[in-house]
């Protein structure tokens, strides 16, 4: 064909501008790139602004109480004296209790779904476990108040009291509402987090490792234990830390079942109070700037701890994807 391939009508000179270095750039590209960069910066800005707002909000309390804030047990809005130790204790204890329940179950689920389950079962069970994460926190709370707490009060706690009552963990009045209920609800809520991240981690393990172990005559479980788990270890720890981060910050469900009494007790039956719960219960009713500031400082502590945990967890999970084949840890 003799038609000349003249592309000049497609190139509109108006649509090009010069960059600093004298290179031609399409103006649309120029604008588009800067616009998206601006919105990407918004993500960083939001995180930074959150940190700044927390520090600013809690400045008065930080000045007033200093380090004593985290070691004092007195929380008295009437006398305007605030110490967060009972809340810190409640948050940490309930989260650790939740991990005790959730870690074995979640790892079991993850190993089941990625290694042992028949293929037709993986999709449906995985879907159901993720639905567990879809149920709103407040619905778990409602269920906790009217289904879990009565069951604990009438069945589980009497049983534990009779059989293990000699331990300090299982003594005292049995309300149903308390540390045990809080731990169970948290465990239910973090199980999908831990199991889905663990599943991703296990999936990232090269299948050559598995096949090698199986080829040497290992049983399926031995293949997992010898070849898969050592490779995935840091990622699994990361998954657990992510779950811990979620447990620490979880608010509604635990507020509704933990009893909301700021006391420190060894008993799992005793009511307790968490950092997130005290903010949820008192923030909108707080009068006086020092009271608000103290609540904001509780929020700041929660923020700092969860951000740090998240950073550690992400680094650990990333590592698994980047390990050399068969590399040791």
């Amino acid at each position, binding site marked *: 064909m003799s038609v000349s391939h003249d592309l000049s009508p497609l190139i509109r000179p108006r649509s090009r501008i010069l960059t600093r270095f004298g290179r031609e750039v399409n103006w649309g590209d120029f604008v588009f790139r800067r616009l*998206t960069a601006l919105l990407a910066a*918004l993500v960083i800005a*939001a995180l930074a602004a959150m940190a700044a707002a927390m520090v600013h909000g809690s400045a008065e309390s930080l000045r007033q109480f200093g380090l004593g804030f985290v070691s004092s047990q007195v929380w008295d809005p009437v006398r305007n004296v605030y110490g967060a130790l009972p809340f810190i204790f409640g948050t940490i204890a309930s989260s650790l209790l939740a991990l005790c329940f959730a870690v074995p179950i979640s790892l079991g689920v993850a190993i*089941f779904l990625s290694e042992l389950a028949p293929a037709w079962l993986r999709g449906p069970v995985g879907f159901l476990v993720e639905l567990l994460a*879809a149920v709103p926190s407040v*619905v778990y709370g409602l269920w906790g108040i*009217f289904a879990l707490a009565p069951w604990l009060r009438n069945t589980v706690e009497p049983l534990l009291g009779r059989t293990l009552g000699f331990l300090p963990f299982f003594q005292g009045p049995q309300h149903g509402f308390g540390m045990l209920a809080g731990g169970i609800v948290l465990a239910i809520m973090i199980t999908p987090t831990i199991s889905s991240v663990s599943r991703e981690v296990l999936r990232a393990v090269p299948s050559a490792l598995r096949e090698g172990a199986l080829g040497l005559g290992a049983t399926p*479980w031995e293949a997992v234990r010898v070849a898969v788990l050592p490779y995935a270890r840091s990622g699994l720890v990361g998954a657990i830390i992510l779950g811990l981060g979620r447990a620490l910050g979880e*608010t509604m469900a635990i507020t509704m079942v933990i009893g909301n009494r700021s006391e420190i007790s060894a008993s799992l039956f005793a009511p307790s109070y968490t950092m997130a719960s005290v903010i949820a219960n008192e923030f909108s009713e707080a009068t006086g700037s020092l009271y608000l500031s103290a609540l904001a400082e509780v929020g700041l502590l929660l*923020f700092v701890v969860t951000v740090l945990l998240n950073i550690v967890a992400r680094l650990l999970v990333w590592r698994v994807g980047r390990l050399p084949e068969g590399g040791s840890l």
Partner: protein
Amino acid sequence: MPSSYARRKFTDVFVRSACVVAAVLALIPLISVLYYVTSRGIGGINLAFFTELPKPVGESGGGMANALLGTLKLVFLACVFGIPPGVLAGVYVAEFGDSRFGKCVRFSADVMSGVPSITVGIFVYSLIVLQTKHFSAYAGGIALAVLMLPTVTRTTEELLKLVPESLREAALGLGLPKWRVTLRVMLRTAAPGIATGVMLAVARVAGETAPLLFTAFSNPFWSSGFGEPTASLPVSIYNYAVSPYEEWHRQAWAAALVLLLLVLLLNVSARLLVRSRVGAR
């Protein structure tokens, strides 16, 4: 091997059954929650529930129409403020994100997705409620948008990266400018997946309570526009559940049923959407 074959076989069967037990244990709460919410909530669902305002304590009947509308308003605002910036930030990270700045954005998004929702509530309270001096749907919607932002950003990025480079090369080869390639080819190809991710994020924030407690607050009446305290289903469920009144408990269960249906519907349809387009993921 020191251990005999029979013992190894036994351990294998034992651990495998333990994993099955774990899976069953994990699903028991789900079944129990679904059972309780359905059986207790179904009785409270009637026309009045969807059309009337809550009745004061002592009077039976009434509904939660204001909370339903409030939740829709808040979710709408969250979508308006959360989705466009999230998607465009995700585009940046996917297309130009190899720089240090891009890594920083990605990392911030990851960290932000782990920030407790209650602290987002405090943040928006000091950012908006303190400045405007009153609770409003705007404040609530922005709090939910902040919660959505990291999820939407990361989902968009992940899905854009799945689009084959050959599509981009073909489009560039046809002479399209880069930005149009990104918008018309890359983003459009990834759209069903991004829609799924966005719907999951919407489903999550629709059920959020903690960040609304002191941003949107609650309101026993209709709220006009977006500038007034606004009732929402999750906050109403909370307030009713912790109240001592039998009648309110019934309303709380009914509201929980509606909320759960809404959230599960979003979840399931989001997953079906992706399955029908790209195959099981």
